[in-house]
């Protein structure tokens, strides 16, 4: 016997109320100075005993009514597993339906998700009459179809039947936590969680925490885990698709890096990988002869973007039982050309002596005859000419060993960056450190770091520092995490400035300045290259020279890739966010004239008839398009009419979800200590399994009826007693 609202038992103190009222009433009377007392006295003597008894009966009834009311409100309940005399207890439940993309595995007839919906309906059917349930979709988040328990079980069934599979990964911990939170505060005799999921190990990656949560609430909340879907041995998936170079120029073959993984336990042979650009179903293709279990192979495929604009690029492998990971899409924006202004602070007498000689060649790595046709166009000027050059004609400006420049040029650079221009700064022997630090770093906050003391000696070759060899975090350098892409570590730095970024809590002087990030480090951990976003543009600051005066990086093969990728990052700064993980919000800054306009968004699995509308609104003072419903992997298209603007972006599913490995037997046993685990099959009678546990009853209704009856008796008695006697 227990109470579901034990605090309300305190209401039993209300039995004092009739007594207090009785006592107070005794103090509230009419006073009459009376002559014929002997008759009253005689009558009272005759009736006193009866009146006292009647008073006591009424008082006792009133106290009893209040005490029973308090008792009914505190919802007394009896849990019992030995008798079903009182029938089944009402259940307040939360149904968690796994809709991560591994639930899309089909056995040829139906998917795991189809089975899960059936199992979920069975769980609802097994609820005793008067029960309530919430329905949540569980993937890496808990998405409330019916966030709070409803008594309308048909509504719950309808929601389950209409639930949609997503391309999200599965991590069941947040969903289970949400379910526990939903139930915890509720006053119910029986609380149950039903989790319908496949037995994929990836979903239970936080098994320890899940088990702990379930164990802690075991006495209050009963958990049932229904595992659907047969064991699946083989699955191939595309686990990655990236643009290999930083730049995506029009009409030039662009290399895409496709990673294919064998998540199964058997070898896969002759896996055909195709690449489709835009609406073309397939372009370049390659066949991977052998993929061993657990192996990931990266292949390069080439595609061409025909004109300027956004292109979805999709890599595909042949369909297997899990469709969602058989293709992967990225969106890239094609550019016609990238114009770069090289400002040479030390031109020298011969071209090859110039500070920007190697840099210029790294930016345009083609024979001089082909330079005209190459998409990167460079213009080299001296530091003197900087103040008279129109910066807006260029996509990026590179300052190489420029001593300093007038304030007006700093202002022009600021405006240029604000509008989306890119700036690359290479220091050298000629730079005016004071100007760089006081004006460019402190006053205008253009540079991501101040130039500290220049360390090392450029005139010798014995003492040098090298760059980091692994754990590249910045997108520009992430390429070198793959050893096959070459190395940066071979470069030797004889002399370099120490980059000193502002303290984390120090606010930059300019509001347009973004946080400083380290792109590349030296082996000792000190920053070698840093960057910061500035307005719509971006600034990269190197710590050493662009030529071989202080280091030999410019003559290493990796220099070309580093410069190209840095240029890509500058030119296509806004394109970085075009590809988001499934479930993450897509945001993109758009031009001012689009404020207040509605963009129609078509998702990868949607027809044009089911477009979603999103209004373009100001975010932090910048007109921004936002779209958060990226539950499906693939390309999305947002269009604004008049003037026609099209933005394409893509969502990529988490490759970990492709791993269909099942929860280990020992983990399953561990889970069974905290929850009931069933392997679901259509013939499983879930009702029989749970019914036995649900006996017990609540007593508030009979108590409430008793209170009503007593109240009626009290009213009648009060009338009867106060009649004339």
């Amino acid at each position, binding site marked *: 016997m227990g109470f579901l609202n034990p605090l309300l038992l305190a209401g039993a103190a209300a039995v004092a109320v009739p007594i207090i009222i009785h006592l107070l009433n*005794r103090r*509230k009377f009419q006073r009459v*100075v*009376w002559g014929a007392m002997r008759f*009253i006295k005689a*009558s009272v003597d*005759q*009736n006193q005993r009866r009146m006292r008894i009647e008073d006591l009966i009424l008082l006792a009834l009133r106290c009893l009514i209040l005490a029973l009311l308090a008792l009914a409100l505190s919802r007394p309940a009896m849990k019992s597993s030995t008798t079903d005399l009182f029938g089944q207890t009402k259940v307040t439940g939360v149904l968690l339906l796994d809709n991560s993309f591994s639930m899309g595995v089909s056995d040829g007839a139906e998917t795991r998700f189809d089975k899960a919906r059936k199992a979920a309906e069975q769980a609802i059917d097994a609820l005793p009459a008067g029960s309530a349930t919430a329905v949540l979709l569980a993937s890496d988040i808990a998405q409330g179809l019916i966030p709070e328990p409803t008594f309308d079980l048909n509504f719950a069934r309808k929601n389950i039947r209409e639930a949609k599979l997503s391309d999200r990964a599965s991590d069941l911990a947040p969903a289970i936590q949400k379910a526990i939170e939903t139930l915890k505060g509720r006053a119910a005799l029986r609380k149950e969680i039903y989790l319908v999921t496949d037995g994929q190990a990836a979903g239970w990656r936080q098994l320890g925490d899940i088990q702990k949560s379930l164990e802690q609430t075991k006495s209050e909340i009963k958990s049932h885990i229904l595992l659907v879907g047969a064991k699946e041995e083989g699955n191939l998936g595309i686990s990655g698709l990236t643009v290999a170079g930083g730049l995506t120029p029009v009409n030039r073959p662009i290399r895409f890096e496709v990673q294919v993984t064998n998540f199964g336990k058997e070898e896969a042979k002759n896996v055909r990988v195709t690449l489709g650009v835009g609406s073309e179903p397939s372009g370049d293709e390659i066949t991977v002869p052998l993929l061993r279990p657990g192996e990931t192979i990266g292949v390069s495929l080439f595609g061409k973007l025909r004109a300027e604009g956004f292109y979805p690029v999709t890599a595909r492998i042949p369909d297997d039982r899990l469709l969602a990971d058989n293709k992967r899409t990225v969106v890239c924006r094609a550019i016609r050309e990238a114009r770069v202004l090289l400002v040479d602070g030390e031109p020298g007498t011969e071209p090859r002596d110039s500070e920007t000689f190697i840099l210029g060649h790294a930016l345009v790595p083609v024979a001089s005859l082909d330079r005209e046709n190459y998409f990167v166009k460079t213009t080299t000027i001296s530091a003197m000419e900087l103040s008279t050059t129109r910066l807006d004609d260029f996509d990026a400006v590179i300052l190489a060993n420029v001593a300093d420049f007038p304030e007006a040029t700093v202002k022009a650079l600021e405006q240029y960056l604000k509008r989306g221009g890119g700036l690359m700064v290479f220091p050298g022997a000629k730079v005016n450190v004071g100007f760089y630090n006081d004006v460019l770093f402190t006053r205008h906050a253009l540079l991501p770091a101040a130039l500290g003391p220049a360390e090392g000696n450029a005139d010798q070759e014995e003492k040098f520092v090298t760059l980091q060899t692994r754990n590249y975090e910045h997108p520009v350098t992430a390429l070198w995490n793959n050893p096959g892409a070459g190395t940066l570590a071979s470069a030797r730095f004889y002399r370099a400035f120490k980059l000193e970024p502002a303290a984390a809590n120090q606010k930059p002087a300019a509001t347009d300045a973004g946080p400083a990030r380290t792109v590349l480090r030296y082996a000792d951990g000190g920053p070698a290259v840093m960057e910061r976003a500035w307005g719509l543009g971006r600034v990269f600051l190197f710590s050493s020279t662009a030529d071989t005066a202080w280091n030999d990086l410019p003559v290493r093969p990796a220099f070309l890739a580093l410069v190209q990728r840095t240029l890509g990052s500058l030119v296509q700064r806004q394109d970085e966010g075009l590809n988001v993980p499934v479930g993450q919000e897509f945001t993109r800054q758009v031009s001012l004239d689009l404020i207040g306009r509605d963009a129609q968004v078509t998702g990868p699995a949607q027809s044009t008839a089911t477009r979603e509308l999103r209004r373009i609104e100001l975010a932090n003072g910048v007109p921004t398009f936002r779209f958060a419903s990226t539950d499906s992997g693939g390309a999305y298209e947002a269009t604004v009419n008049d003037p026609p603007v099209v933005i394409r972006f893509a969502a990529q599913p988490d490759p970990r979800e492709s791993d269909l490995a099942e929860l280990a037997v020992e983990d399953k046993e561990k889970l069974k200590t905290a929850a009931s685990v069933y392997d679901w099959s259509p013939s499983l009678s879930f009702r029989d399994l749970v019914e036995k546990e649900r006996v017990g009853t609540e007593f508030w209704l009979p108590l409430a009826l008793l209170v009503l009856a007593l109240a009626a008796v009290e009213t009648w008695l009060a009338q009867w*007693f106060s009649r004339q006697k």
Partner: protein
Amino acid sequence: MDKQTIDSLLDPLTIQRAEALGLQARYVVEGYMAGEHKSPYRGFAIEFAQHREYAPGDDTRHIDWKVQARTDRYFIKQYEQETNYVSNILLDGSESMQYGSGRLTKFQYGKMLAACLAYLILHQRDAAAVGIFDQAMRDYAPRSDNRATIHTVMQRLAAFAPTAQTNIAGVLHDIARVVRRKGIIIVISDLFDDEEKVLEGIQHLRFAGHEVVLFHTLDPDEFEFPFKGLVEFEGLEGIPKILTRPQEIRKSYLREFEAFRTRLREGCEKNHVHYVMVNTAQPLQEMLSSYLAFRLKTTTR
């Protein structure tokens, strides 16, 4: 005493109506003015009443010689004499008379009644004495047939304020002993005393040859008992307070009260006493004129 208070005791309308009816002594009343009343003294004046056998000591002048001649026995002739009667108006001035639910308390009503009766009696050239009593006679205006006495009577009535408990029976016994001359004794009281003793007192008065009229003065609350809710009754004559719900004891109260009245009424009837229930809510003139009309009808010479 302020004139207004005194005047209020004599309601002109009441007097006007009552005058027409007069106050007939119901029985033969001893009187010294040959008035409109039968005399209790059978004797020797105007109107023959009966014969009685001679007894030694009787005045021989009254022997009916004609009868003696016929029968050879001595009979005395007795006559009825119309007398001026003497009325004693006794007003209960105990605390319990102070209750009043309406405009007037029982005592005020009683005072008006006493004043009107005194006026009427004096106006008929009869003699009236007015006394106010509680446990004993507190104030007494000796008998007088002088009309001017009415003023004194009213002053005394107006000046009296009740303070003590009642002892009606004792007072009646005293009156019976003290008032030698037979007349009308008018008692105005709520009679909240032991009714057995009260009746004994009345019997004593009757035995002394007085005509007794009992004006049982009651407030409507006392015989209707209309109270509701929780009421504390504070006794006027030293009885402890009682807190009760009157509605729940109403029937029982009314039963008790009615039994009390019945005992009184029956006792009065047995002693040939006019029992008049006075409802203080009823206008005085109505009450008085209806009583006098009744009296006129029942009084025979």
